[in-house]
């Protein structure tokens, strides 16, 4: 399926700079010349060393380097926990609509009613999907949503004078952003060990539960792709000691229309619109991490709130929120991401969203059934939208998960997420998503089986992979040791 062809060794663009070249084109200054002597003391002595390139060369450079990227549009990208589903072209088109572009955040509210209505409606839909009462769209990504959510909980406890609540419980299966977020928000992280099956250990949880608990942060389905079947009990235990439940919504693609975090007992939830709601990942953002809360937390939401005035039948931004946690960022969120998510929800409708989750889970279980025939699947039984395997059965060959991952590349596929969650040794986490076809999965499974065969018959080829990629295996140790994180002229 994948084979060799023509690529370019494209130099760093600074190396292509030729003094006097230009790609820019700016309107002339048609105003009478002004005396800018007041600026003289502040003027730059030396112009910024940006490269000087012709327009064609700019286009060529980025076009060429782009071809060295793997992407969803190029092929199957079963990167677990990232929900690399198809990014509908409809969404790209609506994000570029004239009427959504060229809007200053401070222009009069009357001139941005369309964008406000969109955000208002989107928040409403997300509240319905998550079973929450209110949603803020401000956070720019999942981790940002987590911080917003944890700070909401913090503001709530503080408002109640409940200042001893310094502890946030996080299972050891949790994503790195969970403990990092709790720490950034000023909490102590209380990590609890998972059961051998990867679930929350109720015993451990019980030990952790006391009146210093501010919250527990959970992903459900968890990062092993399994549904925390004890969730009702967990919620009760935490609530009983006065703690709140935070839902890391990275895995929402498994449950839409089936079960809602709000109904499971969560008080706060963030969503990753760039996962569940099909907005493109952009090579690492921008995403959006809207946060939903139960009604009692509404007063603490970040400013401004997007509100609707029934009387004037118009939308407005509410800044007067005395108990608000403050602000997570300037303005109201990554609007371009919100537009896409809105379009996605409109296209699918309630039923379509449920279908999406249904087939995401079906695809994952299908792949798990097939792959566990030749790789070790530590979690037995039904998974949700993703699952974990590892090469425990290949230990004798000295082949690691990273080797298999790199070898997958040679066949034109993206590797799974590897070495996460940390609690599974040599984890490979596959998330096919619902937009991939059975043939694609079948071919991928065939490839993976063949690689597993290779591990036995020709492990060298696996350990030295990739052989078919734009570059050979990367030396990341050197990258850290001999730090070179910017181009310099002298180089």
């Amino acid at each position, binding site marked *: 399926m994948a084979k060799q062809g023509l690529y370019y060794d494209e130099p760093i663009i600074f190396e292509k700079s030729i003094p006097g070249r230009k*790609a820019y084109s*700016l309107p002339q*200054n*048609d*105003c009478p010349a002004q005396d800018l002597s007041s*600026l003289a003391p502040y*003027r730059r002595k030396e*112009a910024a060393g*940006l490269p000087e*390139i012709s*327009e064609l060369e700019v286009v060529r*450079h980025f*076009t060429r380097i*782009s*071809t*060295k*990227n793997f*992407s969803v549009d190029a092929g199957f990208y079963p*990167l677990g926990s990232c929900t*690399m589903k198809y*990014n509908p072209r409809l969404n*790209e088109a*609506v994000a570029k609509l004239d009427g*959504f572009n060229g809007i*200053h955040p401070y222009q009069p509210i009357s001139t*941005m009613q369309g964008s406000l209505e969109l955000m208002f409606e989107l928040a409403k839909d997300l509240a*319905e999907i998550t079973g929450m009462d209110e949603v803020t769209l401000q956070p*720019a990504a999942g*981790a940002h949503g987590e*911080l917003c959510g944890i*700070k909401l909980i913090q503001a709530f406890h503080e408002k109640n004078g409940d200042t001893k609540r310094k502890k946030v419980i996080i299972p050891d299966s949790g994503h*790195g952003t969970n403990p990092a977020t709790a720490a950034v928000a000023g909490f102590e992280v209380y990590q609890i060990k998972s059961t051998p099956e990867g679930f929350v250990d109720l015993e451990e949880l019980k030990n952790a539960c006391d009146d210093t608990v501010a919250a527990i942060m959970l992903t459900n389905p968890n990062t092993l792709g399994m549904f925390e079947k004890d969730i009702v009990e967990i919620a009760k235990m935490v609530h009983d000691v006065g703690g709140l439940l935070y839902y890391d919504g990275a895995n929402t693609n498994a449950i839409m229309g089936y079960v809602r975090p709000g109904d499971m007992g969560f008080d706060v939830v963030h969503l990753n619109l*760039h996962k569940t709601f099909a907005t493109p990942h*952009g*090579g*690492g953002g*921008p995403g959006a991490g809207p946060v939903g809360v139960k009604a009692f937390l509404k007063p603490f939401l970040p400013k401004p709130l997007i509100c609707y005035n029934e009387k004037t039948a118009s939308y407005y931004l509410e800044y007067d929120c005395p108990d608000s946690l*403050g602000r997570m960022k300037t303005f109201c969120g990554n609007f371009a991401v919100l537009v896409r998510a809105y379009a996605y929800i409109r*296209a*699918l*409708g309630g039923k379509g969203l449920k279908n*999406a989750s249904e*087939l995401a*889970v*079906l695809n994952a*279980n*299908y792949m798990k*059934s097939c792959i566990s025939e030749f790789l070790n699947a530590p979690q037995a039984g*039904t998974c949700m939208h993703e699952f974990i395997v590892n090469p425990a059965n290949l230990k004798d060959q000295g082949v690691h998960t990273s080797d298999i991952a*790199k070898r997958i590349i040679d066949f034109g596929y993206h590797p799974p997420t590897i070495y996460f969650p940390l609690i599974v040794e040599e984890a490979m986490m596959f998330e096919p998503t619902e*937009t991939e*076809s*059975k043939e694609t999965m079948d071919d991928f499974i065939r490839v993976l089986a063949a690689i597993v065969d290779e591990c036995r018959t020709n492990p060298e080829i696996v350990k030295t992979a990739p052989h078919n990629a734009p570059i*050979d*295996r990367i030396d*990341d140790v050197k990258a850290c040791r001999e*730090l*070179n*994180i*910017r181009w310099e002229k002298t180089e």
Partner: protein
Amino acid sequence: MNYLPATDQDIKEMLEKIGVSSTEELFKHVPSEVRLKRPLNIHAGLSEYEVLRKMTTLSKKNKTTSELVSFLGAGAYQHYQPLLVGQLISRSEFFTAYTPYQAEISQGTLQAIYEYQTCVCEIFGMDVANASVYDGSVALAEAINMATDKKHEVILTTALNPEYTKVVETYCHGYGVKVNIAKHKNGLSPVEVYEPLMSKNVGAIVVQYPNFFGNIDDIKALADFAHANGALLIVATSDVAAMGLLEAPGKLGADIVAAEGMSFVGPLQLSGPSLGMMATTNKLVRKLPGRIIGKTIDSSGNPAFVLTLQAREQHIRREKASSNICSNQGLNALAACITMVTLGKQGLQVMAERSAQKAHYCYQQLLTIPGIEPVFDAPFFDEFLIKLPKDVSYVNKCLLDEGILGGCCLDRFLGYYPELDNVALYCVTELRTKSEIDNLVNKLGVILRG
């Protein structure tokens, strides 16, 4: 529409392989008491054409700068954006990829962001930069976090964008850092305003450059002052285009630069497209949060790029990470990189110079209108304050009727600037024409006379 490829036959075959009789069975672990027993209360799905129509209609409820002539800045600027940028970032190789975890098949993103980091370093005169954070205000909060691991106070001034101040306060609450806010003096933040708040607990002082009022502070003096007190100087910039004219903060002693790169990303969209730029010195590089791309080699010795210094990050360090950030503003960083490269050395200067020229022309013209008064007399870049003899909101409403977005009314910051009553913050970039400026002056004259 639902983008689902599975046919009935596919589903049947998959269920068989799994060994269950229906997809419903796959959800058996979900306790029935929490299951949603009704359909989601969300409107039925629409066809592509219908969604497009619906959203076009929605979008037309906005009025954009394609019909309105804008003199708004105050943290979001309308500069020239090369058309090639939008087209290049629409290459699906870029926008449908994720964080470049697998370097061997992510060299496109990796090289571009390495180039982005270099551009950021060049415009600010700093040693190193990261791959972006969410926006300028978060960049500033992260910068303060970098500067306060040993000390627990920071000093801002009221000449910092009030939204940035709010975000900083929100973050610092969690950091356990005390935020001191000094009052600006005549629209500037000279050493003397920081002095009373300085102590050995202060990890950093922050100055915006140009500041929220458009004025330009003496960065060098502030750097010297900060350093003399064992603190760092953090420079915040909300319009990167200013770097085409102003001395690079790195050259003036800044330790960390936190900037909003929106001007170089794409058209303003009510909120966004934001881009938090962060740059610092070699000394502080290991405290820098977020993704950083490094150059290395592959196993054949060819140059190659890779995510580096990952030991700082949350997925490895967890609660001890330098920040909780994971996804950043990747595609926006790419866009800014392409814009910076397209502008190049000359273009950035031309952009800044023409902005300053036109802003000064506008300022002078506005001051000829009876009743309009200057507010400060500090040197400014392309934004300035004027005092109006009438309520700014009212005036702006009248201007809107003429298709003009008047300067930002400082009242919107709810009492944050009690001393600046009836004051508007005007911004004039290189995109405004003489006739647009003259028209503004003309219309404003009429409104104020009326």
